């Protein structure tokens, strides 16, 4: 515990919440400006699409949106952990299809669902260990490292499946696709995993260390925190979550394909950044990340329901994401101004 105390004194720790000693005014300001940020932007989106797009504000469409974002949501949880620690993980784009293919191939060959899931997750773990070792031991930049491993894992997925889509021969092998309380189980799985990661980040020593490593790696190291072990753990967690997302995707589609999930790397980074994280590390959180994922999914859904042609959708999506990030930054600016005034 003493090392944790030293960490907090050595490095600035920002968990996305209002400063503890900022007083009631600062907390109120933080909450108010949060509404002006991505959260407020999301509400504006919902109101806009509710007016403009038929069938948008319905229960079934809400389930559709949540079904669509479940996989990205789980991948983004891992990406959030990596980004908070100051890293990057593009390899998820290869780990997702690899996990899915391994799962489908194994269950199709008569292995149990649990074993197939474990094997898929194990593959993600190995990818994470490789990423972690390369980043910590060899000291290669995470961007370069994971760019290389995305190529390797993606290639492996193509090799295992011979480049073809493999369907699940028995639909019963996809229990996560079954509906529970009105939604597919993989949506609930995303929420459960999000709660677990949220608790780990906010209430555990590991979580605090993570923010500290991302905030100031050198100061954290000098404070006695095993930063290399933390970094390694971060990539392992990301690998595990993304390969499990691959298993979820395979159960959603009742098939595994090497070409699926290719956009997950950049989309998950976008979601985490939208949710308030910084590419430099040390900030961000799970509620924000889920909000970022929701923005991406809702924009895609709303534009499709508005019958916006696909090429225009790409342009509109880019503009909307820039607006969301812009409003998030505006929120930060207002927060800092109010915080500074409260100290005078």
């Amino acid at each position, binding site marked *: 515990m003493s090392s944790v105390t030293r960490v907090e004194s050595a490095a600035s720790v920002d968990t996305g919440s209002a400063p503890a000693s900022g007083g009631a005014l600062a907390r109120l300001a933080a909450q108010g400006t949060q509404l002006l940020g991505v959260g407020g932007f999301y509400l504006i989106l919902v109101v806009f699409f509710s007016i403009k797009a038929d069938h948008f504000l319905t229960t079934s469409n809400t389930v559709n949106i949540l079904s669509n974002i479940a996989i990205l949501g789980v991948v983004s949880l891992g990406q959030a952990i990596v980004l908070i620690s100051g890293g990057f993980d593009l390899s998820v784009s290869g780990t997702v299809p690899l996990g899915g293919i391994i799962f489908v191939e194994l269950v199709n060959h008569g292995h149990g669902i649990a074993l197939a899931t474990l094997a898929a997750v194990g593959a993600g773990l190995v990818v994470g260990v490789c990423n972690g070792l390369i980043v910590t031991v060899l000291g290669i930049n995470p961007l370069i490292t994971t760019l290389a491993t995305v190529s390797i894992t993606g290639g492996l997925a193509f090799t295992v499946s011979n480049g073809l889509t493999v*369907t699940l021969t028995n639909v019963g092998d996809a229990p996560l696709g079954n509906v529970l309380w009105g939604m597919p189980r993989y949506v609930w799985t995303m929420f459960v995993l999000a709660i677990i990661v949220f608790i780990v980040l906010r209430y555990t020593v590991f979580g605090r260390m993570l923010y500290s490593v991302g905030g100031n790696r050198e100061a954290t190291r000098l404070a006695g925190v095993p930063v290399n072990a933390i970094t390694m753990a971060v990539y392992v967690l990301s690998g595990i979550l993304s390969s499990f997302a691959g298993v979820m995707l395979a159960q*959603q589609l009742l098939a595994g394909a090497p070409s699926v999930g290719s956009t997950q790397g950049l989309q998950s980074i976008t979601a985490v950044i939208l949710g308030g994280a910084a590419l430099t590390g040390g900030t961000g959180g799970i509620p924000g990340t889920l909000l970022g994922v929701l923005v991406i999914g809702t924009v895609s859904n709303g534009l499709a329901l508005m019958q916006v*042609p696909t090429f225009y959708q790409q342009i509109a999506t880019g503009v909307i994401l820039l607006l969301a990030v812009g409003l998030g930054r505006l929120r930060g600016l207002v927060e800092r101004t109010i915080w500074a005034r409260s100290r005078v």
Partner: protein
Amino acid sequence: MNRKRWQFVALAVATTTMAACGTTPGSSNTGSGKSPGGAAKALSSLSFAYASAGDSVGIFKTVGDGVMTHGTQLGIKVKRYDNNLDGPTALTNAGLIVQSKPDIAIDWNTQVGVGAAVGQQFTRSNTPCLAVNQQIPGCAWLNLSNKQMGVDAAGVILPIASKRGWTGANTTVVMSIASANGVEVNDGPRYFYVQTANTLPGFVKVSPSQITASTTTIGGTNGIQIDCKSTLDGAYAAMQNVVGRIPKSNNVLLYGSDDDCTLGAYRSLKQAGFGNRILTGGLGADPDGLHLLRTDPNWVAEGALFFQNWGLYALSEAVAITQGVNPPALTAIPQIMLTKANADTYYDSNGGVKSLPPLVASNKYLAKYNILQKFAKVQGLN
């Protein structure tokens, strides 16, 4: 100066006329003419260059492996290149091919935009060339007809829909297209809609050219077009986004530009509760498509393209060109619309090809080179 100009014009007219005669489909020279002095060469004296679309993709690798294996067995020296699904790489490879001076370059370039530049490399160096799948200006062309696939799929699916009383009033056609892949690749789904509108009552009729990549809806809920982005998960996500627009009591006719585009949308529709009110067909005869055709009552058609044998057709046409033949503008690759009744005639239970459909007018000339017969069972040839 004037005389030179007239000589040039005369030469240009003569060249254009000769080229037009040689490349017009159905012309009398098609597939039979020999260039002056085009004496037949022994296969063992030939050297081919083959640029694969991208060996990281299983289907493309399968075609490439076929070209290499069968080419080697025929005694032809074949050098392989990998365009890696990338335009600049295709252009670099074209330069390398030209340097190696093969008797013919067989090039599968997936990037339409650089086709002209690739073709220029070959024509400037007088390297005969054969484009596979995507057209390359200046090269002979070997390809399937996506339009025909759409028409044939409609031919299988619509009679079943008609028997069930499906009309424009209670049915939605979903077209799952890969918008970034160009118009021709997406001909299947749009011709499927056109055929549907012309066959079943109550659909808004449109011409094929009216259905573009920007089309999202036709006639309210008569037709809905989604962009599958050529992937299974892309198709699923796109369908999930618009599935709420289809009235819950409607029937759905679904056709996509490939098996993944169809399957992803199909999964979404099934999960949305359309159950057995879906009729669909795939394209590609991938193992998953064949499996669904044999086992799923809603999956009633599957366009077979016999990728495993494309190499044989490419080698046959390449040999024909080196022997001085002017091939037709488009030489057809074998294709047929499989049904539950005829699937076993063409494919075994493991997805292996049992037999190929008979040759058609545009590829009949390939039989002369005895390559197809040697390695495959083509109906009407063996």
